[in-house]
């Protein structure tokens, strides 16, 4: 399964990337699985994704929960709670 993963605001800064194409192992089926796998990829990831309470997610530009299932080709974004307006 290939995914396009986007990071915004301080997640982007800590991970050091705005966007990347990843191919996680087959057992990664949900957003929560993906978070766990990403955390294992380095200190920046581990730090950025340490507290799920501070991280929000969207799949294909729609808000999603940690339990949401992933599919090949999905665009998955991680970001902090919104502070616009």
């Amino acid at each position: 399964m290939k995914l396009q993963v986007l990071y915004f605001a301080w997640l982007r800064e800590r991970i050091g990337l705005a966007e990347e194409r990843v191919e996680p192992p087959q057992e990664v089926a949900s957003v929560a699985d993906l978070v766990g796998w990403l955390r294992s990829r380095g200190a920046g990831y581990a730090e950025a994704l340490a507290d799920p309470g501070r991280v929000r997610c969207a799949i294909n530009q729609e808000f999603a929960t940690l339990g949401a299932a992933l599919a090949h080709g999905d665009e998955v974004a991680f970001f902090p709670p919104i502070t616009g307006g």
Partner: protein
Amino acid sequence: MAFIRVGPEDFDPAAEVVALQAEAGDAGAIATFLGIVRRGQDKPIEAMTLEHYPGMTERAIARMVAEAESRWPLSGCRVIHRTGRIPVGGRIVLVLTASRHRQAALEATSFLIDWLKVGAPFWKKEHPEAGEGRWVEARPADDAAAGRWH
């Protein structure tokens, strides 16, 4: 019907009112909300940077506007939200609604700005006069304000 623009360009509130009036036809009431970068008191800032999620932002705003249009008899609506670095006193966001009824225009404007604060993917970073930039934390009060409209 609604006009939505997200991007770094500044906007002219007066020109937007004129455009809205032209689109809205025979509207008797125009309500607007303009958000401006505040300097603040405790740790004064000199600017703010607005980051957003291109594509998702526009979709989220379009959905909010459609919801507002379903709740109130609006004859026109414009939402403009800037991105990038904006100095203190600079304009961030403008919401305009037109209606035959003043309460519809005022309520729809309130609704849209409340939802923009929690439902469109924007993040603010403050740049203090001295020291590092810092990301603004989300405020529970904003969730509560948006929740009023359920």
